[in-house]
């Protein structure tokens, strides 16, 4: 894992203190990251999920995109999850898991300011607002 990637993982751990965080190195110097027990709000079931994403070796110059909610996630009201959500497997470190992909791209991203921890905070807040 490249030092800058490791630093980004540490920032995720600090920001999500109290949540178990798994980080496995990929073969390129990046990392597969899973943050567990994330509260995604009252509108979804389950309310708490694990969120997985990959920090690639290009960090900080590459966006962290997309994110995956592991397991089966539904809306409590029975409606479709809507735009931005797609059923797609998470392919992590020696694993493939059923997941819901959350496609939130940072088209105006500033690599000097944005970080994987900030992106995860924004993605979670967006999910709660849906």
């Amino acid at each position, binding site marked *: 894992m490249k030092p800058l990637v490791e630093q980004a993982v540490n920032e995720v751990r600090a*920001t999500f203190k109290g949540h178990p965080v798994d980080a496995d190195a990929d073969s390129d110097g990046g990392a597969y990251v899973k943050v567990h027990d994330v509260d995604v709000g009252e509108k979804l079931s389950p309310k708490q999920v694990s969120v997985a994403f990959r920090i690639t070796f290009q960090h900080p110059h590459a966006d962290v995109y997309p994110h995956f909610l592991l397991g089966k996630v539904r809306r409590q009201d029975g409606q479709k999850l809507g735009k931005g959500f797609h059923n797609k497997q998470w392919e992590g470190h020696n694993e493939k898991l059923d997941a819901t992909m959350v*496609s939130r791209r940072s088209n*105006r991203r500033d690599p000097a300011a944005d*970080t994987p921890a900030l992106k995860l*905070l924004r993605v979670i807040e967006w999910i709660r607002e849906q």
Partner: protein
Amino acid sequence: MAVSTQQRRPQDEDCLSGAKWALALNDSRFPMPRAVVPEELVREQACVPDSHLLVRDHNSPHDPAIPRGADIDLREGNVFKLVKESEAVFDDGCQSPAKLAWFLNDAWEVTVKRQQSGSSLRRLHDVPANFDVFRDRESPADDLICGDENVEFADGPVFDTRPVEVAIRINKQDVVFTIREPQVSTIKETAKAQGVSVEPDFVLYQKLEDGSFGPAIHDDRRVCLIEGMSFRCVATDDNS
């Protein structure tokens, strides 16, 4: 001139000792050395005629006189008047709250409410937004009072103001503010005006000392800026 070296939040350390005290007597202000003072000391400092007694002013027509030689606890009320000793009433059954004088830059306003917020204290004295309010202490390290703070009368009623100049970091660049508690939208405007690459729809996060980020701080919020605080302000995302 930056005030950073002399500003701190009250919760930083024990700050209750050493607060400055004062009382109002017949519409004059008298500084006092501590919260509990002998009646004799007040008489001396305020030049009270020997024929008169001090009376603590309550929100009532029946104000009890202070007996000669008593200790006066200013935390119970610091507004006094004088009565001729021959007319003094020592009835301590007064149930009305004592009046409380909150001093700011040698002026004062009287309330009966013991607890204010930083914002209500500012409103009480009509403090402009580009001035900070500090609780005055018997040392150079005064307590900065932010708007959301609880301000207890018993912790000290003497305050002063100073022009705001506070430097923080946004996206790793220094940004200087002349308002202590700007709205988030103003923080972004100020940062942009000082060369930080941010836009009005960006999202603000505080970077904390442990390396973590706090939650998003939305545009309708105000932030009490403390010297050296660090923030990130980043673009929102789009569906793809």
